[in-house]
């Protein structure tokens, strides 16, 4: 379902050209749980942003669900993100002045769902991440782990084909991190395709497949222990 073909991402900072992605080809099927690992600066986030349609490659092809997204414009990419992808960020990225339920409803607002349907789906998503009863709180009133669960619920509410998580446990203590990871694993077991970026080998091994990046290139692609 995800098909990167010889993808380059080149940043030009002053005179220096940075090859953040240097000819990557990667195929990910439906239902997979892939961990992308590598040292800092190896291109993990860049790769994730391209898979997440937040950015477009400088060169190469990206086919998502049979659609070539590498040449799409801004609004078309918004549509794909809204309908195919769910994001879990390291910093949760919740909107502080919106209540928990309103945050979770956000992708559905942009899908133009009617209010009742939005409410119902968002409540179900909150229940799935174990936050039932907290829908009217605001993000500041939650712990880091709870906030991350809200962001997972938000990703789920959009019923995406792929869930992308960039360092989802990076801002959490190890115990909460393990809980969140367990939740992500459970989502995979329920059939969601998951791509997870981490520099923590322990976490990476929980995935079914581990892809290692170095200097913008894939240097390793093997099954993980989660298999």
């Amino acid at each position: 379902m995800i098909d990167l073909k010889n993808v380059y991402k080149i940043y030009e900072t002053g005179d220096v050209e940075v090859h953040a992605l240097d000819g990557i080809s990667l195929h990910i099927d439906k239902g997979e749980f892939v961990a992308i690992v590598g040292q800092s600066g190896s291109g993990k986030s860049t790769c994730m942003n391209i898979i997440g349609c937040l950015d477009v490659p400088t060169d190469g092809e990206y086919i998502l669900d049979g659609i070539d997204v590498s040449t799409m414009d801004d609004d078309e990419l918004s549509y794909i993100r809204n309908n195919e992808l769910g994001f879990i960020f390291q910093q949760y990225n919740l909107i502080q002045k919106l209540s928990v339920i309103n945050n979770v409803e956000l992708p559905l607002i942009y899908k133009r769902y009617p209010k009742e349907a939005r409410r119902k789906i968002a409540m179900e998503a909150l229940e799935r991440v174990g936050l039932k009863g907290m829908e009217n709180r605001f993000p500041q009133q939650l712990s880091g782990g709870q906030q991350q669960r809200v962001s997972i619920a938000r990703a789920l509410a959009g019923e995406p084909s792929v869930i992308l998580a960039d360092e989802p446990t990076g801002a959490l203590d190890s115990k909460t991190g393990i809980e969140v990871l367990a939740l992500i694993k459970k989502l995979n077991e329920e059939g969601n395709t998951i791509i997870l970026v981490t520099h923590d080998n322990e976490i990476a091994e929980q995935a079914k497949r581990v892809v290692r990046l170095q200097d913008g290139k894939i240097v390793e692609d093997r099954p993980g222990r989660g298999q």
Partner: protein
Amino acid sequence: MDIGQSFILAVKSLMASKMRALLTMLGIIIGVSAVILISGMGEGLTAKVEETFTSMGSNIVTAMALRQTETKYVDLDKLAEFASETEGMKYYAPYTQTSATAKFGTEDASTTVYGTNEDYASIRDRGIASGRNIQYLDVEREQRVCVVGSHVIEELFGDDVTNDELIGEQLKINGTTFKIVGIMEEKASGMAGGDDDMILIPYTVAQKVFNIQYVNMFYFTYENGDYADTIIDKVDRFFYNIYDNADYYFIMDAQSMMEEMYDMLDTITSILVAIAAVSLLVGGVGIMNIMLVSVTERTKEIGIRKAIGANKFDVLSQFVIEAITTSVIGGTIGIMLGIFFTNIASVILGIEGKVTFGAVAIAVGVSSLIGILFGYMPAKKAADMHPIDALRHE
């Protein structure tokens, strides 16, 4: 985009920083209230002018002979003939105007005495409360009779007598005895110096008593507005034939004076409203300024929304709705303040200010337009943000 939610969010963020919201809206508030105040007072002034002119009487042409000599003077018989023969002419009254002292017993009153004919009362819209008006024969036979205004009656006789009792009484005007034949209905609340402070006598008598050789003021009225131009024209020609020179007489009609006055008031009001509108513009720039700050502050939020699937239009409309909400709330406060100030100004200036529905509608329309106009640029900036750059922003 969910308009309801955008609106609620906009109100919330305004409430969150009230001082900033107030400063943002200040320009709009001042602009709108100034427009409401000025247009309201303009309306009031126009109404006041209209009232003044209406009380002067409508369909009236006034002529004044500025200089009369043995050879060039207004022949009253000819003028009466001219008036009766002219089609569309309704009333005609020559008149003199003299300050005089009226006396009854030991009481006296200084007042204005008009020497005129039987039509004067109709022309000036004066009703007779008791007795009768001046009549044609009074003029012809130089009868020393008078019709008295209510203020003079009160000065001379006090409140204790009824009008009817006074008919037939005699009073002295500058020493000459006159018989009271009529009393006029009150018109100007009985005020001194107003329409009730006057006495009417036959002009033939006035000429004798006050030693006036030539009557020099004349009223003409026409049947209806259709005759206005021809009557003014004919009166003008009558006087021109006497003098062969337009400098020796003067003709004016209430209608065209009123129209000129309206035009002038309209122009003044428009200019003032235009000046006030400039402050609306400044208010719009204020909103744009704050919106730009707000967009920068909320870059991260914009990034999140875009990452989750908001497209350009979603983000654009969110910020435009916010700008409109701000300016419309400012406009509403401005309208209320404008009405408040109009009421205060009405009391201070003694002019009944009128806030019209039109002015309010325009104020609302203009302030939402300003929201769209000045909110668009910052909103566009937000909509065009690149999601990754926006997300990275702290």
